[in-house]
């Protein structure tokens, strides 16, 4: 039993508030340092691409942002499910704190993708499978935030949002595969755990540095936002 009590110790907003502040400060700092390093590697160290020239360098923002956009939705649904299962207030707050950051990364991925597509594909937007499913992911984020904004009672907003996030996360793979089946032009994934990467190692390290920076940024932004929500509600 004692392990369970310790586990839930930080589930109380009051005890979590100072901890969130400490972690958020460390993550802000770490994300700034890693982003500086990642951008340096990306812009000055990584070689120019043989086919795409300098235009490919948007990859250092685009790919990590796309990773984060999908991962944060799953994370949001995880917190939402936890909130419904254990009826903890903090879980719902975490879910609603993650949503704007996730939507931001989805938007960045779409925006940089458009800027990248113009010189390489010759169009800002094409109805390709990944672009379309990323757009639908953005709609899912916006729907989640709109639903929470429309409900005045914060507990009901949390629970309604949680249910929507879970329904959404079940649908995300279905949407992804149906759209992929419908049309495909986007290049396959460049990085995979199963085989050696098809790009120069400096490019890869720049991208991974940026991915880590975005991770820390997401943690920092979500925790800072959750502190605001705690202050507002408690």
């Amino acid at each position, binding site marked *: 039993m004692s392990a369970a009590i310790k586990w839930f110790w930080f589930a109380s907003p009051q005890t979590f508030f100072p901890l969130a502040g400490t972690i958020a400060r460390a993550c802000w700092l770490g994300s700034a340092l890693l982003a500086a390093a990642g951008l340096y590697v990306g812009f000055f160290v990584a070689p120019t691409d043989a086919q795409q020239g300098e235009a490919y360098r948007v990859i250092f923002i685009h790919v990590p942002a796309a990773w984060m956009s999908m991962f944060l939705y799953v994370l949001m649904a995880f917190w939402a499910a936890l909130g419904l299962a254990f009826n903890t207030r903090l879980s719902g707050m975490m879910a609603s704190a993650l949503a704007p950051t996730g939507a931001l990364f989805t938007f960045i991925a779409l925006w940089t993708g458009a800027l990248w597509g113009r010189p390489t594909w010759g169009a800002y937007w094409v109805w390709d499978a990944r672009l379309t499913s990323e757009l*639908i992911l953005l*709609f*899912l984020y*916006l*729907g989640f935030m*709109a*639903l929470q904004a*429309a*409900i005045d009672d914060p507990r*009901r907003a949390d*629970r*309604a949002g949680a*249910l*929507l996030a*879970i*329904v*959404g996360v*079940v*649908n995300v793979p*279905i*949407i992804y595969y*149906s*759209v992929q*089946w*419908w049309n495909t032009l986007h290049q396959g994934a460049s990085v995979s755990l199963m085989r050696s990467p098809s790009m120069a190692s400096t490019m890869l390290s720049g991208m991974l540095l940026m991915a880590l920076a975005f991770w820390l940024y997401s943690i920092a932004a979500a925790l800072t936002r959750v502190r605001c929500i705690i202050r507002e509600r408690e």
Partner: protein
Amino acid sequence: MIAAARCIVARDLLLALRRRSDVATALLFFVIVASLFPLGVGAEPNLLRAIAPGVIWVAALLSSMLSLGRLFAADHADGTLEQMLLGAAPVGIVAAAKVLAHWLVSGLPLVAIAPLIALQYDLPAPLYGTLVLSLLLGTPVLSLIGAVGAALTLGLRGGGVLLSLLVLPLYVPVLIFGAGSVDMAAAGLSPQGQLQLLAAMLVASAAFAPWAIAAALRISTE
């Protein structure tokens, strides 16, 4: 349990029969939206034939979404819904029965009238079967998914617009496979794959959606 479900279906059908104009409005909306496209894109027969499956499916999507607002609203307003939630029958069964009744009055007429729209778009006659079958499999999925959104937005301000924002992204797979099956048949290939996927979605949503609707109703009425 079955008796309770049958009772709810019969009651909702009777209510719809007494207010026939509500049913007619959603159907009319479907016809009007489908009629607007030729006015917008031009009446070139080849173009119309090419866009017909997509237009009919998008019109069906919008029309089905439009009628979702009424699914629980009246029962919520007069307190019947709370009595149903308190009653002995499982809430999932109640939700499934209400969705079934809703589909019978909003989805089924739409399936019946779709060949008429297809006629206007000069869709070749052999494709009618695929179109009707895809709508028959797809529109219940729309009702089931939409009902989750309707239950979540129950009694909220700006519920209608919010509902469309929540539900339309989730409709995407149904639209792709529904319109895709007719396109496939138009290209001379077998639409069986898409139709089976639609049937799979129907089975999966019929199994899971009622419990999600029940949870949403409990959240919205507490």
